[in-house]
């Protein structure tokens, strides 16, 4: 992904509590949560960092 930093969502449940806060705030609607698992669309995500701030437990990082 040239020009884009890595976005990493810890999706094993070790940090993520499957709360959906990031899903509701992502301006591009590119994060998904099925019953437990969280994932996002590499292509659409602009690495704006909003989800990183919104996650209450720090499961998302960019860089």
């Amino acid at each position, binding site marked *: 992904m040239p020009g884009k930093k890595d976005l990493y969502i810890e999706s094993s449940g070790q940090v993520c509590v499957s709360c959906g806060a990031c899903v509701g705030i992502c301006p591009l609607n590119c994060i998904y949560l099925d019953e437990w698992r969280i994932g996002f669309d590499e292509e659409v995500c602009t690495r704006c960092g909003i989800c990183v701030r919104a996650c*209450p437990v720090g499961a998302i990082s960019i860089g």
Partner: protein
Amino acid sequence: MAISTDLKCDVLVVGAGPSGSMTAKWAAKNGADVIMIEKRQEIGSPVRCGEGISKSWLADVGITPSSRWINVEVEGARIYSPSEKVMEINEKHAGNEVGYVVERDAFDKALAIDAANAGTTIHLKTHALDVLRKDGRVTGVKAKQFGQKFEIHASVVVGADGFESQVGRWAGIPTNLQIRDMDSCLQYRMTNVDSDVRYCDFYLGKCAPGGYVWVFPKGDGLANVGIGVQVSKLHHPAEVRDYLDRWIAQHPGYAKGKKIDMVGGGVSISPPIKQSVADGVMLVGDAARMIDPLTGGGIANGCIAGKICGEVAARAAKSGRTSKADLMEYDRRWRAVLEEKLLRNWVAKEKLVSLPDETFDKIIDVLSGVRLEKLSVLNILKAVRERYPEVTQEFENLL
């Protein structure tokens, strides 16, 4: 039994939280053939909630209080300023109805049972993936259950899919939130803490910028201890957890407690959304950003709107008139009941989040001296104006 073919119904409700179950129940009661889908395997679990509700609205929407889901009946609320001056609001002494701390999982299940008994078909572990469209109108959803994809066709689709709502976005209804319009929340259920079963406690100020810390008692030394912080005031990863852990560490009555569960979540603190319906689709509850922006409570508003939503959806589906214009009846009716308070509390919240801690202290100081029998923004402001007119100057338009 797994679903292997496409399904069809009058009203399809996506999400079996309180708003969805209320909608489904009232749609079924009004003669519609209703399907409700829920992506979780267990309705109401895991609980993502402080579990505090007021009582006054329950009868209006047909919910009968039950010991199955009432945990504690509280007498009032205590509001703590940054320097921990406390103001007590004891509505019981005034003969008013106060509130319950509920078992949210049991509450959600009870509402789903009501919906089922009214005739709703419920499919668990069934995830809506997108809406189906024909000539620009929503005609159902693509869904997935046990790895199997299928379609559910419906005259009306109701998005009751909570804070993380996708239905509105898929259908082109703007529900996006600004970071200032959301609180990021974290809560521990803790045992062995010094909470008082008579009160729901709220701590305001720098301990939780743009939000508050809450302690809702569950009896026997058990309590929900949680926090909401405005996302625009967050700058580092896991800052919400740090705020909550810090608050707990500073309060010996809670620092000695033990955590037995942890939940996160998002709460909208936005003004009411501009549009809640489109052709063939309606939004209700958190999906329609109906949370009270001052208190962060969303169960009551979701249920109140859910009843209206179900009635209108059933009538629309049965008559085949499901255009945006037809569904606007719902938009008008929920606004008539909820919008004024949502707006007023949003304005009040906007002011509150900008107040310095000293002002909070002054306000609570005044209020601790007066006996407030009804917690309303207006009552509070009037009491403060008497002692510190300069504090309420900014709020004059509310008074």
